[in-house]
């Protein structure tokens, strides 16, 4: 793990990169990294995230600045800008069930090729997907998702990279922290090593590549 500034962290991300972004409707989102993506005008990004938040907040900032080319998400309905850009075909949107999205990311992080899920079977979600029957039950094969970068927001981080999360700000963060080539983390508080109890670490240190220093 290496401690860096937000500027240094974001400078590593090229235009056109695939980027997972933690958070759920802007809660538990690495806001400082999104602000910096906007400031450095990193464009043509391929985003994987639960949702597009709302204009001015969380991921919404990237759509305000028109930096996104594609997004895979479960819900974009509360961000009218994304709806507009989708209708205008300036962005490509792939929607999938939230449980499918998180399991696909988990597969990517856990070395699994995919999972069989009943969600979406018999709906338009099944189009183009391999269907597998087990004991008479109908499943869709949903394949693994990975990305070049994951931007993760934690509550506590220590200087080795151990992370813990608070309340509903955990959401997609720990799953994404396993599924990208490079994991960049911001945290509300950075604490000395040993302060987070081993039982309360959610993301073990070796998963984190860069920790953005505070202040």
């Amino acid at each position: 793990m290496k401690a860096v500034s937000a500027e240094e962290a974001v400078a590593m991300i090229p235009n056109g990169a695939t980027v997972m972004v933690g958070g759920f409707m802007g809660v538990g989102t690495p806001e400082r990294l999104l602000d910096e993506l906007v400031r450095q005008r990193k464009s043509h990004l391929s985003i994987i995230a639960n949702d597009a938040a709302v204009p001015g907040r969380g991921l919404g900032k990237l759509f305000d600045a028109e930096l996104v080319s594609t997004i895979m998400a479960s819900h974009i309905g509360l961000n009218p800008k994304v709806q507009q850009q989708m209708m205008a075909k300036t962005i490509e949107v792939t929607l999938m069930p939230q449980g499918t999205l998180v399991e696909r990311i988990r597969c990517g992080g856990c070395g699994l090729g995919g999972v069989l899920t009943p969600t979406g079977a018999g709906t338009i979600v099944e189009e183009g997907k391999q269907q597998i029957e087990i004991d008479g039950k109908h499943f869709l094969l949903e394949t693994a998702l990975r990305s070049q970068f994951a931007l993760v927001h934690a509550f506590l981080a220590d200087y080795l990279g151990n992370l813990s999360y608070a309340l509903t700000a955990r959401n997609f963060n720990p799953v994404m922290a396993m599924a990208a080539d490079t994991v960049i983390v911001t945290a509300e508080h950075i604490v000395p090593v040993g302060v987070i109890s081993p039982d309360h670490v959610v993301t073990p240190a070796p998963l984190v590549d860069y920790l953005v220093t505070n202040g």
Partner: protein
Amino acid sequence: MGEAMDPQTIIAKRVAQELRAGNLVNLGIGIPTLVANYVPPGLNVFFQSENGLIGTGPIPEQGMAHPLLTDAGGRPISALPGASTFDSAMSFALIRGGHVDVTVLGGLQVDASGHLANWMIPGKMVPGMGGAMDLASGAKRVIVAMQHAAKGKSKIVQKCGLPLTSARPVDLVVTDMAVMGFDGGKITLIETAPGVSVAEVMAVTEAELAVPDKVPEMKI
């Protein structure tokens, strides 16, 4: 009867009667959210918020909200003693694994075989399915809470024209006019709303509704 209840209150009060002690319950947005207001006092029910919480409490009092404790819409909520928080993988493991006893979902259409459509109107509304498909496929019991008709058109249809939320039929539909079930795979009238006759329900229901000899009125 006293003051007339508004449609949403009728629905929410009636759905609340379906909850049992110890149930893990997930409420969708819209009318389903109101169900929490009518849980009988003393009945211990766990409410899940799919962004990562079991033990959702009421909207916090002024000054007691925390930005990291919100519902799935990003609005501040509170957590009851004995609450637990978790990541999205766990949240949907609970939903898909059949650990959610009851989910209450809004609906655009429910059809005669119990299929629900509630997540998109092609060419018009494409917000994404969020957790709706997982809930409709994975929860032990799926209850749809919605108005019986919208703009004069029945939402209880013979066959869904809108894209389905799940191939799995729902278990119960509660509207401002009726309660309907699917025992035997066929939509059946179970109760009527206070002051609503069976004939009135039939008149605004597109689906072929099976009607037993006796249809009691909701007790709400």
